[in-house]
């Protein structure tokens, strides 16, 4: 097997505040292979977007990467100087953010923004760059790209703008795309179009995609593997089918039960009691144990992410070597 495109090892992100250091991402590890879509799900504050920002080197102070490493094709990128990181960003790692209106500059025509990015990262002439921009817009499904290229962002609808942002991310033919909630601001019908587009790009160009979203439906349709995050840690990671139909971690089970479906009847939804802990008060041991119906003595100690069937799960219920505490209880 070839080296994964992206490999994150034991990543830890901290924020220095007056009340001490807050650990926002704690010991997160995962790989993404070429042509693979890794979905990262979790609720607000779970650390999904921070993990994405760390990969592209956009963690702003007071946040900082306090430990672990990030490898792009086996090369460490988390400790690169800003000038070298800037060359990488956009060239080898593309980005798509949630709000397509704020990720485009409203004062420039979209063609200028595309050409600027292409010229920064390739050796094309301006005329060639413009041809390439037109081709990219056609590829992401914008009708009449030759004339639309001279429009401003406000002349596009939300879905079309997100296509432009995708074209922008594809300019330098990156190996990895970080898509942070790319469909959250869009209506379902447009969302379906953007998902189809992401899947096609992944299949045709062999791009690795890290898809960050809170929408399990989007993950179910797009991702090959899913990482479920809770309070800055990965609770469970595994193939999408297994996570959705046979979730192992009690948090994943609760999350799946809480999602209203189109097939269900007009009945009560399952609910997880309580709410996600604040960063100032992450519980000892397994971060989920105060809300967990299956918690037992061992949960006072933090479980490692260990293989369980085709997935990996951080839960003592699925580990063989339960700490000695259990015997006494």
């Amino acid at each position, binding site marked *: 097997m070839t080296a994964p495109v992206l490999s994150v090892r034991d990543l830890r992100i901290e924020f220095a505040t007056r009340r001490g250091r807050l650990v926002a991402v704690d010991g997160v590890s995962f790989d993404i292979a070429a042509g693979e879509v890794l979905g990262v799900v979790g609720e607000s504050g779970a650390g999904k977007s921070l993990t994405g920002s760390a990969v592209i080197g956009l963690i702003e102070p007071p946040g900082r990467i306090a430990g672990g490493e990030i490898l792009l094709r086996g090369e460490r990128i988390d400790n690169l100087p800003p000038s070298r990181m800037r060359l990488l960003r956009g060239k080898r790692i593309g980005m798509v953010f949630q709000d397509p209106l704020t990720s485009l500059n409203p004062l420039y025509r979209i063609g200028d923004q595309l050409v600027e990015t292409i010229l920064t990262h390739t050796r094309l002439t301006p005329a060639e760059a413009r041809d390439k921009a037109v081709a990219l817009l056609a590829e992401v499904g914008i009708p009449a790209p030759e004339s639309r290229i001279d429009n401003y962002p406000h002349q596009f609808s939300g879905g079309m703008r997100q296509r432009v942002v995708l074209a922008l991310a594809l300019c330098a033919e990156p190996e990895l795309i970080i898509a942070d909630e790319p469909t959250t601001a869009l209506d379902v019908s447009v969302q379906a179009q953007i998902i189809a587009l992401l899947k096609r790009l992944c299949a045709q160009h062999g791009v690795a995609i890290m898809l960050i979203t809170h929408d399990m439906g989007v993950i179910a349709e797009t991702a090959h593997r899913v990482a479920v995050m809770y309070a800055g840690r990965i609770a469970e990671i595994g193939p999408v089918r297994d996570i959705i139909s046979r979730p192992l971690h009690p948090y994943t089970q609760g999350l799946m039960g809480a999602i209203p479906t189109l097939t269900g009847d*007009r009945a009560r939804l399952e609910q997880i009691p309580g709410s996600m802990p604040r960063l100032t008060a992450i519980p000892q041991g397994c971060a989920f144990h105060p809300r967990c119906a299956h918690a037992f003595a061992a949960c006072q100690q933090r479980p490692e992410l260990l293989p369980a069937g085709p997935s990996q799960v951080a839960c003592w219920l699925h580990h063989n070597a339960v700490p000695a505490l259990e015997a006494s209880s």
Partner: protein
Amino acid sequence: MSPDVLVKADRLSRVFDVSKPWLNRVIEREPRKLVIAVAGLSFAIMRRETFALVGESGSGKSTVAKMVVGLIPPTAGDVQLDGVSMFAREDEGKRRQLRHRIQMIFQDPYASLNPRWRVGDIIAEPLRAFGLAADAAAIEARVCALLRLVGLDPADAVKYPHEFSGGQRQRIAIARALSANPEFIVCDEPTSALDVSVQAQILNLMRDLQDQFGLTYLFISHNLAVVRHMANRIGVMYLGRLVEIAPARDLFAAPRHPYTRMLLDAVPDLTASGRPRKAVEGEVPNPIAPPPGCTFHPRCPYAFDRCRGERPDMTSAGASLAACHAVAEGRI
């Protein structure tokens, strides 16, 4: 009017003027620009039922919600609650007694609570405004009871909204809506700003409160799965018009209007049996210049000449209504 009908909207329309200022229009020789946000909407909501309106952004759902509670006046048409018009001048006196029977829950709990007020004051405001409590002690007792009802601690009454999470804030908004003992609550995307596990808590709470107090909901959402869990009957909106009204079960089992079918096909499938998700063609057109005839015809796979020229009326079949020529002619 049937005694079971609590709220009735009758050919409700709302037009927004988005033209440039007069001088610019004269100099640039531009006509007025009007957005028809809601056009001739009629529906009835029965007592103790949840009626849902679904549709994409810009379909006019929230405008309907604001008109139903009387926050904005309609350009034409009327809303009646228990036979009393919300807008007719002659019903002014009766309307006063009506106000506390209608409440609203808004989408964004970060914006709908005054950040400078304590939670207790926020919840007590309707009690004071409508004079529903005898004295300060009665108000305090009621606030405590309401906080407990929505799953918060009575001690939370002295805190400020910023001390709460999104889900807790939405609980406060629900407590405020309930404080005036309403019969009818308009919920405009009450869970769109919340995470799924919190959404489940809030939806369950709303269902329990409905059973406990016999509430009637107008539930507005863009999320079909949420609507499926909450609603008895559903109205589907497209560009300011209702295209289909049907009991929830029928709508999901056998959608009739092509737009409803398209919306259902576009929802991501969680069970992911491999049902192909149809890539939907096109986007919602500009409401300033909506297409003639049936406004959905440019995106409709079943459109034919009649759809381009003639606007379809609602035709009924069983318990459901659909505005589509193809459905009326039995072609689909």
